[in-house]
């Protein structure tokens, strides 16, 4: 464990200095990596720590994005108030899903399918909500891109990069702290054996709800970032099950339940996807779908041969 802090410090310094070293395109890729590292970390709180498999996390991204986006679109209210509303709504939604599921003792596959159902239900709901633009989408005004307007979260790519870096670093620190605190121990106990956990005085219902609430709140913030970074929101895209799968891929590939797993997984997958695109462009194979086929094959190989993810295997190799 001695080498981890050193590794972390080097990584942090590198990420802070990265904009000096690379151009705008690489910076956008790095922003994307940080985004998935962040959402992966958020999902990991629920699944990796507390053992509750959510396959519908896109619902929190979407609700968060639409909450802050609508405030800005309709009333010109910036994302700082928006993020509060987003968190409040997503926590409420997470608590409703969690309350229903845990009260009715829905677990395992059934719980996972329930989360998908809620995400799909919400997607179709937003398709029919005219206030947010329905299926035609919602577009946020892009006024200027030169100066940093922090109040409205408008600015150059560099600003978004540093914002995402701060979020990812914050999420990492939060998860590291949670894992070492009573909550982390209780969640892991619930994940390993719920009955035994309860016999040790843990109110499993309440602690599972807490995991859902924290995970939903973190994901809501990612949704707000998404809205102000991409400036357009479509229910079909933001709530789609493939968005939920994207969130899960990083931590599963990197290592479920570990701190570095989501970060490593997001990095590997984003670079892989980018690398495949470039390699295919280089050889001139630009058929729609071919990139995802390669991506799927690599995914299959990783899942088959590194069942616990890349990080545990790597950590053993590096003796971290």
């Amino acid at each position, binding site marked *: 464990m001695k080498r981890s802090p050193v590794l972390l410090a080097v990584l942090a310094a590198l990420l802070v200095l990265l904009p000096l070293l690379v151009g705008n395109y690489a910076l956008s890729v790095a922003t994307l990596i940080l985004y998935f590292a962040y959402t992966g970390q958020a999902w990991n709180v629920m699944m990796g720590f507390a053992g509750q498999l959510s396959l519908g996390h896109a619902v929190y991204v979407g609700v968060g994005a639409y909450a802050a986006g609508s405030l800005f679109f309709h009333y010109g209210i910036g994302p700082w108030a928006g993020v509060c509303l987003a968190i409040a709504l997503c926590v409420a939604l997470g608590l409703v899903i969690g309350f229903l599921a845990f009260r*009715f003792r829905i677990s395992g596959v*059934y719980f996972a*399918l329930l989360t*998908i159902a809620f995400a799909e239900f919400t997607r*179709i709901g937003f398709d029919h909500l005219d206030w947010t633009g329905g299926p035609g989408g919602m577009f946020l005004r892009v006024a200027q891109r030169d100066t940093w307007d922090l109040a409205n979260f408008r600015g150059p790519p560099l600003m978004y990069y540093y914002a995402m870096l701060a979020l990812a670093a914050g999420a990492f620190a939060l998860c590291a702290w949670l894992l070492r605190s009573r909550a982390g121990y209780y969640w892991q106990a619930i994940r390993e054996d719920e009955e035994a956990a309860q016999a040790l005085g843990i109110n499993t219902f309440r602690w599972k709800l807490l995991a859902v609430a924290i995970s939903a709140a973190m994901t809501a913030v990612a949704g707000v970032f998404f809205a102000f970074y991409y400036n357009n929101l479509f229910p079909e895209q933001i709530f789609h099950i*493939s968005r939920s799968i994207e969130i899960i891929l990083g931590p599963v590939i990197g290592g*479920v339940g570990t701190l570095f797993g989501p970060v490593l997984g997001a990095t590997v997958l984003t670079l892989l996807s980018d690398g495949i695109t470039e390699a295919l462009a280089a050889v001139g194979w630009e058929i729609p779908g071919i990139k995802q086929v390669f991506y*799927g094959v690599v995914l299959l190989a990783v899942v088959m041969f590194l069942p616990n993810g890349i990080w545990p295997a790597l950590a053993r190799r590096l003796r971290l």
Partner: protein
Amino acid sequence: MPALDLVANVVVSGILTGLVYGLMALGLSVIFGVVRVVNFAHGEMMTLAMYAATVLFAAFKLDPFLAMLPVAAAFFVFGYALQAGFINPFITRPEHSQFMLLVAVAIILVNAMLMIFGPDARNVQVDYQLDSYELGPILIDKGRLFAAAAAVIAASGLFAFFRYTLTGKAIRACADNYLGARVVGLHVKHLYALTFGLGAVCVAIAGCAMVLLVDVTPPLGPAYTLLAFVIVIVGGLGSMGGALLGGVLIGVSEALAGLFIAPSAKSMFSFGLLILVLLLRPQGLLGRRA
């Protein structure tokens, strides 16, 4: 308020489509009931079967009902190989790991189809598609009726297989008690692969029947996966009769929601039903408590 005979027509067509849905979901249900793995690539396999039917039709003018034989045979082999080669090593792994495996398979399938067939819709055109039987005020499309009949026959065949054949009984034994089945000397992994193959056959037949009702495009895959989940959970994951009942329920509710509310709201109805069933009767309408 739409006229009563219109409602009756919509209900009948919903039931017939629902039976085809039911056969597709039956495949998922049987696989889960025995192997205890949720096939997240189910809809993608369905779409593959639909493409197979359109290809056979375009190349050899093969009627989709005749195409069922070769497609089913190929899907049996595909399903057997998928289970034996990929899923069997995963049966003791955690759910999220199994999920990721099948998501990878789904990503490969749907994008391979996009590569090969492109994004445009494909279909088959047979002469009886436009014909219909008249039953008083009710018009029944021939294509839809035949598709539903094929689904019912295939489902009955599967019921009979599980009830009367030795292999079917052995598979049910594996589903009831994995350890017990091994103790009495059953080759469980082979039986699992056989089950996945049979689930794939359901999908193959449902897919061939479905091309008579809708055009096929790659994005249909994920949509059918979700649809199959909704159906089996409403009917009871692992229950064979429940899958057919769920299919019919969803078929009818979709058709009615399309008529009374808006066609785009029809799946909201299904997911609402799913949430209700999960909360009130998590084992499904015809399922047993684990």
